[in-house]
């Protein structure tokens, strides 16, 4: 397996380089380069996956480290770790990435920067694979930022739009906030253990390299990176804005893979978290799940609904890890990747169709993403509708779909946690509440888009199904949201028992002093909570669907009237709880103001008055010394004084000189007489 690893990095990176430098000159603008690269990695990933299935060994693990550089005593090692988790993640990424590449051939067909788009996709694939393969925090951090870069480039792909440019900048900066925390966490672990490798850190922590309170802090610092990348509250604000990027990008990066990196990191680092840290993680996830679900209910932009839904689902995964059901979290990550990618690509198909219809009608003002403009598209886009419907069922947690199993596992974990720690009763409430809302807003989306009547009938007349390059990925992904894919060789729609649970098993925490429950205890608890959790989740899911049917399909209640009656909650939800506004007001604007003030102070006051003040004082002093003292006094008064006085006396005595010898003789005579008189005296 190890021999495959380099190709996951080299191939996409080479494709990126080729696209950037030669893409435009290649035939078909080089899309085949990227597709070949990602296709090859997909083949490799499938091969590895098959090997894993044949091996069927939960503890299978291959690791290889090498020295990146050394500074004498300090040797910085990085390396590759391949275990079952890695294989599954690689497959998820390669699969979704491959399908998105394929889909993009149709979706981005006429874009002037077509080749660069594929280059960026390759860059993303490279960095994402890097995160997955890393066996150390340092290279994870590096690839972590690199996926941030590719996300920046792809969100801002249509950079002529100010909104896209803003969104890309925001995504990068918000992620960096989390990354700083992560970096501090890495420094804490490195300082304590002297290595970046997971294995060394785990061993060091198990040996008590960090005292418990510091371990909590260090763990939470690492988790801060996940908060940023996986768009958890309070750093979730970038993800909805990231929908400014092309829709396939949203499917790949902002739904299926990159945003899952945070969950993946938390999953990998799970043994390091102390109970206190895990509680914080659980609450962050729980709050995110319910918070984003509430917002998703009132959004009208089809992609924004999905974006908030993604945030909410990521919250689920994080909550699962926080409650100890971290295998369930990873399971949900996998299933979610498939059906959320399907949902995004379907929405892309709808937007694509709407866009073309508007284009044909010469309408450049209407928003092709606004669900209020859609409706009745079921008959026109059969494949899109069917696949989207399947993915919606999966997301809503309806039995026979993959989402049901994974979500159920999470809810069972949450419920079990709450039974052991009754003071955390809010967590299951968040979980089930979010499940209800999820079912509701997803069916709202389906009904508003595919049922009923559109705002303008002529739009509907011009709607066509998308080309095969776009629908094939939909079909593949929708198929992957059926439960059976994940439970083989067992076929029981109500149990997640299958190859996945066999191969991915929980490991014990390495936190010293046994403050964490063991993996076995957690599994036991989840097992007991399984049945009640399933019953409740079925009830809430169907309640949510029923509500959506009543309001949006049968129109028994007017949604507008409901909104009016619930004015305050509606307003909060519609405006996303004003989080962006609060950040603008209390963080961003003050920072810019501070920067302006500091810049002004530095240049206009400190430099001009203080530093130049030295110059000015010196100048004054020199003027005093050079002009007043030296010139006016010393030179003018004293030195020139000698000459001046001479001149004065000369002027005064000048009249004696008449030029007449006789006058002079008189003076001589006078002089002699005076001398005589003096002599005489």
């Amino acid at each position, binding site marked *: 397996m190890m021999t495959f690893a380099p190709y996951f990095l080299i191939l996409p990176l080479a494709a990126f380089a080729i696209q950037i430098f030669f893409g435009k000159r290649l035939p078909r603008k080089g899309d085949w380069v990227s597709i070949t690269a990602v296709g090859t990695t997909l083949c490799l990933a499938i091969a590895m996956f098959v090997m894993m299935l044949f091996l069927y060994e939960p503890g299978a693990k291959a690791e290889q480290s090498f020295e990146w550089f050394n500074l004498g005593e300090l040797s910085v090692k990085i390396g590759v770790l391949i275990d079952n988790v890695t294989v599954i993640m690689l497959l998820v990424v390669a699969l979704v990435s491959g399908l998105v590449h394929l889909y993009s051939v149709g979706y981005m067909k006429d874009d002037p920067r077509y080749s660069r788009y594929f280059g960026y996709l390759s860059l993303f694939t490279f960095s994402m694979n890097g995160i997955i393969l890393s066996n150390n925090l340092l290279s994870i951090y590096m690839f972590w930022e690199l996926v941030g870069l590719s996300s920046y480039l792809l969100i801002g792909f249509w950079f002529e739009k100010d909104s896209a440019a803003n969104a890309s900048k925001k995504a990068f900066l918000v992620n960096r906030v989390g990354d700083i925390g992560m970096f501090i966490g890495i420094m804490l672990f490195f300082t304590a253990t002297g290595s970046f490798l997971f294995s060394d850190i785990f061993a060091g922590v198990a040996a008590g390299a960090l005292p418990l309170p510091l371990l909590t802090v260090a763990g939470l610092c690492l988790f801060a990176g996940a908060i940023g990348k996986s768009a958890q509250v309070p750093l979730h604000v970038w993800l909805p804005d990231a929908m400014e990027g092309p829709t396939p990008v949203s499917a790949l990066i902002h739904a299926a893979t990159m945003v899952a990196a945070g969950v993946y990191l938390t999953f990998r680092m799970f043994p390091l978290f102390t109970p206190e840290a895990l509680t914080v993680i659980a609450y962050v996830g729980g709050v995110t799940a319910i918070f984003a679900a509430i917002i998703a209910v009132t959004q009208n932009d089809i992609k924004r609904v999905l974006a908030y839904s993604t945030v909410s689902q990521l919250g689920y995964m994080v909550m699962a890890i926080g409650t100890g059901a971290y295998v369930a979290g990873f399971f949900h990550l996998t299933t979610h990747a498939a059906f959320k990618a399907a949902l995004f690509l379907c929405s892309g198909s709808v937007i694509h169709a709407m866009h073309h219809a508007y284009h044909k009608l010469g309408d450049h003002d209407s928003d092709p993403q606004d669900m209020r403009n859609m409706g009745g598209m079921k008959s026109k886009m059969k494949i899109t509708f069917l696949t989207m419907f399947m993915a919606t069922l999966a997301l809503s947690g309806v039995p026979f779909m993959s989402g049901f199993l994974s979500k159920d596992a999470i809810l069972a974990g949450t419920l079990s946690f709450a039974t052991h720690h009754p003071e955390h009763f809010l967590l299951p409430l968040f979980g089930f509440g979010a499940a209800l809302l999820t079912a509701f807003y997803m069916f709202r989306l389906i009904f508003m888009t595919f049922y009923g009547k559109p705002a303008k009938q002529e739009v509907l007349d011009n709607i066509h199904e998308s080309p095969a390059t776009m629908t094939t990925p939909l079909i593949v992904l929708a198929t992957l949201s059926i439960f059976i894919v994940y439970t083989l060789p067992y076929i029981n729609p109500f149990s997640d028992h299958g190859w996945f649970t066999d191969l991915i098993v929980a490991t014990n925490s390495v936190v010293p002093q046994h403050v964490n429950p063991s993996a076995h205890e957690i599994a036991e608890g989840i097992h007991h909570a399984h049945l009640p959790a399933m019953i409740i989740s079925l009830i809430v899911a169907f309640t949510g669907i029923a509500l959506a049917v009543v309001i949006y399909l049968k129109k028994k209640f007017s949604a507008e009237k409901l909104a009016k009656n619930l004015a305050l909650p509606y307003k909060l939800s519609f405006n996303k709880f004003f989080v962006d506004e609060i950040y603008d007001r209390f963080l961003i604007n003050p920072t810019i103001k501070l920067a302006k003030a500091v810049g002004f102070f530095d240049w206009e006051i400190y430099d001009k008055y203080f530093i130049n003040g030295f110059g000015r004082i010196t100048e004054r002093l020199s003027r005093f010394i050079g002009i007043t003292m030296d010139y006016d006094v010393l030179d003018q008064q004293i030195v020139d004084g000698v000459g001046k006085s001479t001149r004065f006396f000369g002027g005064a005595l000048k009249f004696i*000189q*008449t030029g*007449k*010898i*006789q006058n002079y*003789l*008189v003076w001589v*005579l006078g002089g002699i007489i005076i001398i005589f008189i003096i002599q005489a005296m």
Partner: protein
Amino acid sequence: MNDLNIYLTVGAILFSLGLYGVITRRNGVAVLMGVELILNSANVNFVAFARFGGMNLSGHIFAMFVIILAAAEAAVALAIIINLYNKFGTVNVDDARSLKQ
């Protein structure tokens, strides 16, 4: 008052007259005449000191020199005055003020 004093008084009067002439006369020739008077007052003194001072003939000899010198001086001075006249068109010494800048 002895005899010497009489000679010296004559010499002094002669000298004063000469000096007066030198200082007050405008005419160059008259100034020259004043100078001659001064020289002669000196002669009187020389001779008087030679006679009463118990000296030998040196006073007389000096007087002879002075007379000769006076003759030479008169010749040079008259030549200067002629030049002066050529240059300034006058023998009035007041007009010859080139010494003043």
